[in-house]
C-alpha cells in the first residue's frame, strides 16, 4: 500500500459547550489516490472529522497528517488551498458568476488570467458543463448543476486531496446517480485522495474504495472494502446499517466479466437442424443461440428448427436483452428474472458471444 495521504492518530474533539466528545480516539489512514467514504448515523462526527482535516475545526487532542505533515504545524490557509472542499449546501458565492466561482482558488493563488481561463475551459470539458452556463449566477442554476459547479470549483486548483461532505445530498435520486457516475468517471482519471461523507449506504458502496462505518463519537465499527462489508459485516451495528438486500448489493459490485460464464447451446447458420436440435436437447433448452464466426446473430426455437433443413432456413430472432462483461451481476440477475427463459445471454460489445448466466450460477457466486 502506498504511503498514507491522510492519517488520523487518536483524534478527539470535544466542543466547549458539551461534555460528550463529538469524536473520540479516532485513528484511520487514507491512502494516496483512495476514496474513503464515512457513513454513520446523524451526529456521529462525520462532518467534525472532515473539518478537522482542513482545520475548520481544531482537534482537542491527537494528530492529523496530510501528506506527511501535521496539519497543526501548517498555515491553515495554505493547507486549505491544497484541499478541495465541497459541502452539501455547496456555498457558491451568490454575487459571482459560475466562471468566477470556479476561478476562486486559482485567483486567491494569484494565477494569471490566461491560465485561469484555460483551467476553466478544462473544467468545463471534464464536467461536461454547458459553456453558456459560465456567465450565469448560482441562483440561475438547477440543483444538479450547482452540485457540479461546486465540485468543479473545489477541483479548480487541482488539489491532491478532496473533502466532500454529502456533496450529492440535495438532489433527486436520478440526478444523484448521474453525478455519482460522473464522479467515478472523473476520479478514475484524476486519482485524487478523497474523504467523502454520505448518509446513503448505497452511494458509499458505489463509490468507495473503502468504507468507514462510524458509530456515535466517531467510533469505527468497520473499515473495509464495500465487498467485505457486505460479505462479512463486523457486527450487528454494521449489519443493521447496511440493511436488507446485502446479497443484491454485493451483486451490484461484481461485474459479469469477473466470473466464469457458463456454456449454453450454440449453433452456426451453416449447421443442419438435426445437429442443432441435438445440441439443444443436450442442454435441455427449447431455444439455441445462433453464432457466426463468434458474432451473436440471435436465437431460434425448437419448433422453427423442426420444420427446417438447415439452421439458416430459420430467421434468427434478436435477443430482447443480453448482458455484457461490463454489466453488474445485479443487472444480469434482472435480465434473468425478466426473461421468459430464465437465462441471460452474455456477449461483449460488438455482439461477440461469450456464454450464458443462470440463476444457480449467480446464486453460487454470492454464497461462496
Amino acid at each position, binding site marked *: 500500500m502506498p504511503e498514507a495521504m491522510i492519517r488520523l492518530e487518536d483524534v478527539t474533539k470535544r466542543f466547549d459547550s458539551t461534555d460528550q466528545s463529538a469524536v473520540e480516539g479516532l485513528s484511520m489512514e487514507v491512502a494516496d489516490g483512495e476514496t474513503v467514504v464515512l457513513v454513520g448515523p446523524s451526529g456521529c462526527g462525520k462532518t467534525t472529522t472532515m473539518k478537522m482535516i482542513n482545520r*475548520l475545526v481544531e482537534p482537542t487532542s491527537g494528530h492529523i497528517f496530510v501528506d506527511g505533515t501535521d496539519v497543526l504545524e501548517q498555515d491553515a*490557509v495554505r493547507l*486549505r488551498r491544497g484541499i478541495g472542499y465541497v*459541502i452539501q449546501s455547496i456555498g457558491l458565492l451568490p454575487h459571482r458568476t459560475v466562471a468566477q466561482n470556479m476561478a476562486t482558488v486559482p485567483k486567491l493563488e494569484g494565477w494569471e488570467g490566461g491560465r485561469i481561463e484555460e483551467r476553466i475551459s478544462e473544467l468545463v470539458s471534464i464536467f461536461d458543463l454547458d459553456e453558456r452556463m459560465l456567465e450565469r*449566477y448560482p441562483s440561475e442554476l438547477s440543483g444538479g448543476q450547482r452540485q457540479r459547479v461546486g465540485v468543479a470549483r473545489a477541483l479548480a486548483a487541482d488539489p491532491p486531496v478532496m473533502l466532500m461532505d454529502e456533496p450529492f445530498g440535495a438532489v433527486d435520486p436520478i440526478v444523484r446517480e448521474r453525478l455519482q457516475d460522473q464522479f467515478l468517471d472523473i476520479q478514475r482519471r484524476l486519482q485524487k485522495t478523497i474523504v467523502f461523507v454520505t448518509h446513503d449506504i448505497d452511494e458509499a458502496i458505489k463509490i468507495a474504495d473503502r468504507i468507514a462505518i462510524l458509530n456515535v463519537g466517531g467510533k469505527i465499527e468497520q473499515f473495509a472494502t464495500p465487498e467485505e462489508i457486505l460479505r462479512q459485516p463486523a457486527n450487528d451495528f454494521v449489519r443493521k446499517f447496511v440493511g436488507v438486500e446485502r446479497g443484491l448489493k454485493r451483486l451490484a459490485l461484481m461485474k459479469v466479466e469477473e466470473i466464469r460464464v457458463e456454456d449454453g447451446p450454440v449453433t452456426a447458420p451453416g449447421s443442419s437442424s438435426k445437429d442443432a436440435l441435438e445440441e439443444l436437447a443436450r442442454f435441455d433448452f427449447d431455444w439455441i443461440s445462433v453464432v457466426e464466426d463468434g458474432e451473436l446473430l440471435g436465437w431460434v426455437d425448437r419448433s422453427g428448427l423442426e420444420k427446417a433443413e438447415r439452421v439458416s432456413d430459420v430467421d434468427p430472432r434478436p435477443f430482447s436483452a443480453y448482458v455484457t462483461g461490463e454489466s453488474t451481476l445485479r443487472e444480469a440477475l434482472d435480465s434473468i428474472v425478466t426473461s421468459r427463459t430464465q437465462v441471460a445471454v452474455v456477449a461483449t460489445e460488438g455482439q461477440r458471444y461469450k456464454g450464458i448466466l443462470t440463476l444457480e450460477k449467480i446464486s453460487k457466486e454470492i454464497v461462496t
Partner: protein
Amino acid sequence: MDLFGAVWTWLTAAENWSGSAGIPVRLWEHIQMSAQATILGALIAFPAGVYIGHKRRFEFVAVTVGNFGRALPSFGILGLTYTFTLNWPGNIGFWPTFIALFLLAIPPILANTYVGVKGVDADTVEAARGMGMREGEVLTRLELPLATPLIVSGLRLAAVQVVATATLGAVAGWGGLGRFIVDGFSVGDDPQIVGGALLVALLAVATEVGFGLLERVVTPKTRSQRSAGGRRVLPGPAIGSEAGSAS
C-alpha cells in the same frame, strides 16, 4: 389659498435668497452639519458593525445600540450638551447640534452593517473559509459585497434622520434651515415657518432619493438578466425598515 400664496411669495422673494441669513447660506449650513455628523457617525459605526458582524462577538452591543437608537431623545441631548459646550470654540449651538446628530447617526449604521455582515449565509462563509480564503478575504470578497445594500440603507436612514433632526439646532442657537422655523415662531411669521419646513422636507426627500439610487448602484448582481425587484439579494431581517418606521 392665502397661506399658500404667502409661502410662495416668501420662497420666491429675492431678498430671501441673498445675504448671510438667506436660504442658500442656511441650506448649505444644514447640509454641511448633516454630512459631518453622518460621516463621523459612520466612521465609528461602520467598523464596529463590521467587526461585530464578522467576529460575532459583542453582538449585544449592536443590538442594544440599534434598539436604543429608536428611542434616542435628540431634543434632550441637545439640552443636555448645551450647557457644558458653551465654552467650546465655534459658533453658538454648533456643538450641541453636532453631538445630538452624531449620536443619532450611529444606531442605524451600526445595526445595518452588523446585520448585513452577519446575515451572509453561514454555509457560504464556511465554504469560502474552507477553500482557503483569509479572514480579510472572506470579508472583502464575500461579506462586505453582499452586505453593501444593507449598509447603504443604514446610511440612508441615518442621513435622512439627521437632516430632519438638524432643524432642532436652531433652538440651541445654531443656523441651518431650522432658523426660518424658529425665527418664524418668535415673530409669528407663518409663511416663513411653512416655507422653512418645506425646505427641510425637500432636503430630506432629496437625501432619501439620492441614497436610494446609490443603493441600487452598489447592490451586487446575482442574476444575469435584470428582473423586476431584483435588487433584494439579502436574506436576513432588515433592521433598516424597523428603524425607519420609528423615526
